[in-house]
């Protein structure tokens, strides 16, 4: 055996053992069995994929946390809104009992106003600098309020009707924000109910007016048909309370009396310029008798032509009542329209209207507050009646809010369950990665000891072999 052979064998072995010891030392120092893809190509792709998956899952986990905090904030606000609605319902029940005087009703109205302000603040709440009740529009105030004399006169939704889409799992989006409109506005439209005494009825057409509306029937002009010579008195424009085309005036020229519909006869003379004539329901017209026809005699039926105007926006805009089955009246402030049947219109006044299944929390509160604080000219009994009806509206909204809370709760459960799944997947992915990548320290230590021993044996054996030589025996 040549020296070169011994040297070659020794060096080859030492080189291999050094490499193995270095690799094992690297594994021991890093704790990783696979540090580079080349260390274990068969496992490398799996490890890389698992690590990518883990990073992706961590993002989903963070998004789910965002979604959950949004949901919790939404849920918290909704619960407070719900409590406020319950309080409103209690107050309305008290107010509708007719045992409270106007001061007490004012006071209840004041509390409802405070609750309205509170609810608006709740739905415009932010979580981590973004709004939670504006759907996908999280940067702008979801509910904008208009005020008159410092009081909220209307609340309009400015958020998005689409939910925000946050990625919470591969191909799955969810949202912690809420489309406020869907929670605080009931969307189960029914035929409008007209609660006043003007004689108007709901038209057969489908209106898009929502919630509580106040339709004003105002008098504009009264004219009289025929040749009786009777005319509107000076107070007619402002004082006539009749409306529609269903009225008759009767002039008894012999008895010198005038009767409106089925009302009491009122005496007149040729000098009567502005006398009030009322029917049995209390509607009044002012007439001028100074120009009665000279030859007038007996009982004369006179057609009463009334021009009345209908307004949904407190007189800002109006239309002339045209005695049709489907007359559209538009609220210029909201653009919403109400079909009314004006054929049976008989008197002026304010017509409270409810559109069941369309109430929204805020404008309902505005409406009942105004009702309680006497901002609407209606009788106590009508007010009581309206308050009772408002309790139904509150019930509608409450039902919607409760459904929203339930839905949010259910979604919260689902997303928390998803969070647990994601968390489990993260742990599982890490565990799988660890199994593939982490070094078994005991095994590494054992292997290292083995190669250390091989290393020493290689050196020892080379030394022994080289020591044995005939040279020692040469003289």
């Amino acid at each position, binding site marked *: *055996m*040549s*020296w*070169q*052979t011994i040297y*070659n*064998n020794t060096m*080859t072995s030492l080189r*291999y053992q050094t490499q193995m010891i270095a690799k094992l030392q690297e594994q021991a120092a890093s704790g*990783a069995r696979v*540090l*580079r*893809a*080349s*260390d*274990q*190509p068969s496992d*490398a*792709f799996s490890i*890389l*994929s698992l*690590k*990518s998956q883990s*990073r*992706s899952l*961590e*993002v*989903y986990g*963070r*998004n789910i946390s965002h979604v959950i905090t949004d949901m919790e904030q939404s849920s918290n606000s909704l619960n407070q809104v719900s409590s406020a609605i319950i309080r409103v319902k209690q107050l309305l029940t008290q107010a509708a009992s007719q045992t409270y005087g106007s001061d007490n009703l004012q006071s209840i109205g004041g509390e409802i106003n405070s609750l309205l302000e509170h609810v608006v603040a709740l739905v415009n709440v932010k979580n981590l600098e*973004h709004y939670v009740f504006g759907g*996908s*529009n*999280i*940067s*702008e105030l979801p509910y904008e309020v208009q005020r008159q004399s410092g009081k909220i006169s209307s609340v309009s939704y400015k958020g*998005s009707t*689409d939910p*925000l*889409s*946050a*990625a919470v799992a*591969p*191909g799955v989006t969810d949202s*912690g924000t809420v489309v406020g409109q869907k929670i605080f506005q009931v969307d189960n*439209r029914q035929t409008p109910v007209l609660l006043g005494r003007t004689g108007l009825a709901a038209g*057969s*057409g*489908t*209106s*898009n007016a929502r919630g509580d509306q106040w339709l004003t029937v105002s008098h504009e002009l009264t004219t009289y048909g025929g040749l009786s010579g009777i005319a509107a008195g000076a107070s007619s424009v402002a004082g006539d309370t009749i409306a529609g085309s269903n009225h008759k005036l009767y002039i008894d020229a012999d008895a010198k009396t005038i009767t409106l519909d089925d009302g009491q006869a009122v005496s007149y003379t040729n000098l009567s310029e502005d006398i009030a004539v009322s029917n049995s329901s209390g509607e009044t017209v002012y007439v001028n008798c100074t120009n009665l026809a000279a030859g007038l005699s007996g009982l004369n039926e006179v057609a009463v032509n009334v021009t009345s105007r209908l307004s949904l926006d407190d007189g800002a805009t109006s239309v002339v009542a045209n005695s049709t089955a*489907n007359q559209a009246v538009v609220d210029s402030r909201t*653009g919403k329209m109400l*079909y009314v049947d004006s054929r049976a219109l008989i008197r002026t006044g304010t017509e409270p209207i409810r559109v069941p299944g369309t109430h929204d929390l805020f404008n309902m509160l505005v409406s009942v507050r105004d009702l309680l604080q006497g901002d609407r000219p209606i009788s106590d009994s009508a007010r009581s009646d309206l308050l009772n009806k408002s309790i139904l509206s509150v019930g509608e909204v409450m039902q919607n809010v409760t459904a929203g809370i339930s839905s949010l709760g259910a979604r919260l459960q689902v997303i928390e369950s998803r969070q647990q799944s994601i968390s489990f997947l993260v742990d599982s992915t890490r565990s799988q990665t660890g199994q593939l*990548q982490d070094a078994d320290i005991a095994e590494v230590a054992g292997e290292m000891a083995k190669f250390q021993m091989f290393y020493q044996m290689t050196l020892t054996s080379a030394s022994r072999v080289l020591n044995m*030589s*005939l*040279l020692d*025996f*040469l003289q």
Partner: protein
Amino acid sequence: MDYSIGLSGILAAQRSIELIGTNIANASTEGYHRQDGVLKPTDTGSSLQFTGGGVVFSEVRRMIDRFVEQQLVRQQSNLGQSSQELSTLQRLETVFGTIGTERLAEGLSSFIGSLKELSSWPNSSALQQQVVTAAQQLTSEFQTISSYFASVQVDLKTQAQELVGQVNTLTTRIADFNSQIIGSVSIGVAGNMLKDQRDQAVYELAKLVAVEPDRLASQTGLVVMAWDIPIVKTTQTTSLEVGVCTDGSLGISMADADYFRSGYGGGQLGAVFTLANEVLPDLQQKLDLLAAEVIRSVNQWHVQGVGQNGSFSELSSSERPLGTLDAWKGVTDGSFYIRVTNQTTGEVVRHKVDVDASSDTLATVAGALDGLAGISASVGANRLNIIANSGFKFDFMPALSASPHTNNISGTSVPSISGSYTGKADELYELTVVGTGEVGITEDLAIEVRDSSGSVLKRVNVGLGYAEGDVLDLPDGVALAISRGTLNNGDGFRIQALASSDSSGFLAASGLNTFFEGSRAGDISVQQRLVNQPSNLAGSTSQSMKDSTNLNQMASGLEVANAALDQLDAVSFLNRMISGLGRQVAAQQAKHVTTEQIISQLANRRDMIGGVDINEESAKLLGFQRMYQAMARFMNAQDRTIEYLMELVK
């Protein structure tokens, strides 16, 4: 009786001992082959009776196994190649980082993750900044790796030139040895030491190039072929030089022939060619492909969206060539849509701009845009500049147009469209009125919705029971509302629903409202307008301009199987690329170890024959010592015999 026999024995023993000394002296000399003396008996020429004439040291044999030597040369080439490839591949592998800190994969995942995270909070300036920062880190990683590949490519070329220099030096040495060997042989000297040195040079040469030595190790002349080029022809050499082939690859040519060819393997030089012409371009191509797909995938969505600031007042493209658009990457015949919004009236008008890639230029497109109401467009400094007139804004969103095409409506009712189209392809919905009457009043007044193939998809009531403005859900996220008024039977209108507002690829290719700039790993970057103002990140494509739909589109675009990436998503493609490189490294490591083992075994076999075994030499030394002593005694005996005879004569 003379002293010639004794003398021949002494001389033979003396030369043998000298040879043993030489062997022992060169026991550790690299490339040295043991020499063995050949003793032959000699005839004295006596005519009467053959008694022998002593011994002659007739020849010095070089102990060599030609087959083993040939194999060793070949394996040296393999070892040279695998060593070179292994070290370079290991260098390339390190640029991706260790597993756990793989920077590009981390960058890509982080970028996708940041888009998803922003989707949960699209107006967050911190998360918008996070997306831009993640994108910058990603582009930085692409650029770093690409430039590293480029520097390795340069290194490989330099290395090839250095290796060729070494090859040329070695061939000259081999030719010189050949010349000396021929000279030695001509004067009767075997020249074994020269042959050993020459063969050692051939081994060195084999590490550099794939050589095929002819008549190695035994003959005086030697021809060495490297890749079919006779680089050594006995005493003549052919110098090589490195250069660029006509196809751009690194190649080799005989010096001054200027005929460079590639495709050679074997030896370090062969490895350099393989690395420079195959391995590195393949990696670079994959990296560029990945970068290009990231750019394309993100940009195709980003150009269509708007940021939290809404539509644009002005926008400029990147610098682009002024020639026809087909010279640009990614532009085909098609069209793109631009929406112009009158901020005073809220009216949104969508315009279609047709693109003919083979004839249109940047100026043509600018001209087409400039003719649209509410905006002006021009080309300056190789950029397309679009500016909205006062009171107008523009964007490229595929959002549904609020006003459908109402060219066939005779009633007074006005339809309006909302919602976000979720279909995967452009669609033109035909809506036809069924019945005549008033919206919200007439019974059985409806609208039928047909797709472009004429199939009825849905029928919605707009008569009694429908309230003006109520939103009706149509297919694929489209929503319809009808105003109060009349509709007549047979009236119709169309809704154009766009899956993409740019079928031509012009917007992305021009850099108008793109996220990334560039086309490959080396030049990918984040658009400066996003870096300056991350809120320009176009996350929304809906009419509200506040949603995060586009962010999810951009993220999911990178997560779906992509035909250009072998049906893999971007991250998997990168992971496969990294693990593929690891597999190459591991394969080279295995090959390297195997080759080393083969060489070790061959070297052992060679050393069994040609190596110096000290014990064997010592044993021989003992023998020749004894022979010398014996011959000396023999001569002494002869001398005494002669002396005795001489005494008798006295």
